[in-house]
């Protein structure tokens, strides 16, 4: 555990109370005591050991830490953990079932939608939010929807192909 988490897990000085929150993470209610300044990204990574959520820039730019809160993509480095109290959070760990990859994960595999993989969890969750609202997006719509997620390896071409692949598979499955 990092020194940062030790520091913020220490009962804080004077009159700043720790808050008890219950967050539904990937379908399971998790109850924790947190200091109000704890960021959602750190609650997930350090409090719950869900390290699939990556912190890239920590400045609301890169989108690597994107998770779904109540179904909508959120940069988890830019939301307080206490704000997730009583809400549903989905991380990359919640995409696959024990036996099967999510079609979006399969698409990234089939179309070689990642190289180093650092941006991939955030990309996939933004893609999931897109496909829930728009099951048949154009290439332009995919590029637009993913424009808050930065990738420094792929040039985005195969990421777009991966999302198109997933969209087609998900449409076929729902028919």
């Amino acid at each position: 555990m990092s020194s940062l988490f030790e520091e913020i897990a220490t009962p804080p000085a004077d009159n700043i109370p720790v808050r008890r929150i219950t967050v539904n993470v990937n379908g399971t209610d998790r109850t924790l005591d947190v200091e109000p300044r704890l960021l959602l990204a750190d609650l997930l990574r350090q409090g719950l050991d869900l390290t699939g959520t990556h912190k890239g820039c920590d400045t609301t730019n890169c989108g690597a830490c994107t998770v779904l809160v109540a179904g909508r993509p959120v940069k988890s480095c830019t939301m307080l953990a206490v704000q997730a109290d009583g809400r549903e959070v989905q991380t990359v760990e919640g995409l696959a079932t024990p036996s099967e990859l999510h079609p979006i994960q399969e698409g990234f595999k089939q179309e070689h939608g990642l190289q180093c993989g650092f941006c991939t969890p955030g990309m996939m969750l933004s893609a999931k939010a897109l496909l829930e609202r728009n099951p048949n997006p154009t290439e332009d719509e995919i590029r637009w929807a993913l424009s808050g997620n930065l990738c420094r390896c792929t040039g985005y071409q195969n990421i777009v192909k991966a999302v198109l692949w997933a969209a087609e598979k998900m449409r076929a499955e729902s028919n």
Partner: protein
Amino acid sequence: MYPSRFKYESPKTIEAAVALLDAGKGDAKILAGGQSLVPMLKLRFAFPDQIVDINNIPGLDYHRFDADGSLHIGALCRHEDLEHSAEIAERQPTIAAAAPLVADPIVRTRGTFVGSVCHADPQGDWAATMIALGGHLVVQGPKGKRTIDMKDFVLGPYANALNYNEIAIEAVIPAPKGVARGGYLKLERRVGDFATASVAVALDMDGNRVLRAGIALAGVGGKTIDANEEASALVGHDLTESIIDTVAAAVAAKAEPRTDHRGSSDYKRQIVKTFVKRILVAQIAEKVA
């Protein structure tokens, strides 16, 4: 960096939120979308004692047109609510054009219209839009509600006219005389970057005649630039290329851009002129589909 320590409350009513602000005596801060405040907390540009999270106050996430044609935007209406609104697309072209250009798609799921106006970032899209539209804010404090005109609201970079114990609960855009027309253009190097220059144009028109005109600029000065006076030269006239040229030049002269890595001062002024022209020319009646 990590935010400094603060107390956190998430009241269920506006009155309770106002009471917390009042008790904070200037060291309490409202948290709405948090897409500017949380980064500022992390950079420790902001270090309030008390955060008052208004996200659990019901009934603030609306935007609606009243029967008189005025548009009302609640304090928890997110950028993406406006971006995806069929009513906005149909009836309020300046906001419809700006909404997809605010920050990036992920930030737009959290960030709020009213919060962005209050943040008064010189780069902010919504403060410029509100000035061009001649809007006002409804604010609530311990003694009740009052309204503040946008022309009096932005005092400087990150400075607004709210008292420490007041919350902006609603933005109001008055009903257009005639038909609401206009647009928003922003030049940015990449999605989510600070704008090189942004232009908001809002017109009320009857056919090709301009009944009201507002123009405001972002990213080209130490604060949001109010060019409504320059825009008012259009009022009472038909939109023609020659009057558009005159107004575009006057608005560009009002900009106060600084040379930086996004471009020279002259270049940014040229962008302002081009964007004003581009938006206005598209409103000439015979060009409107």
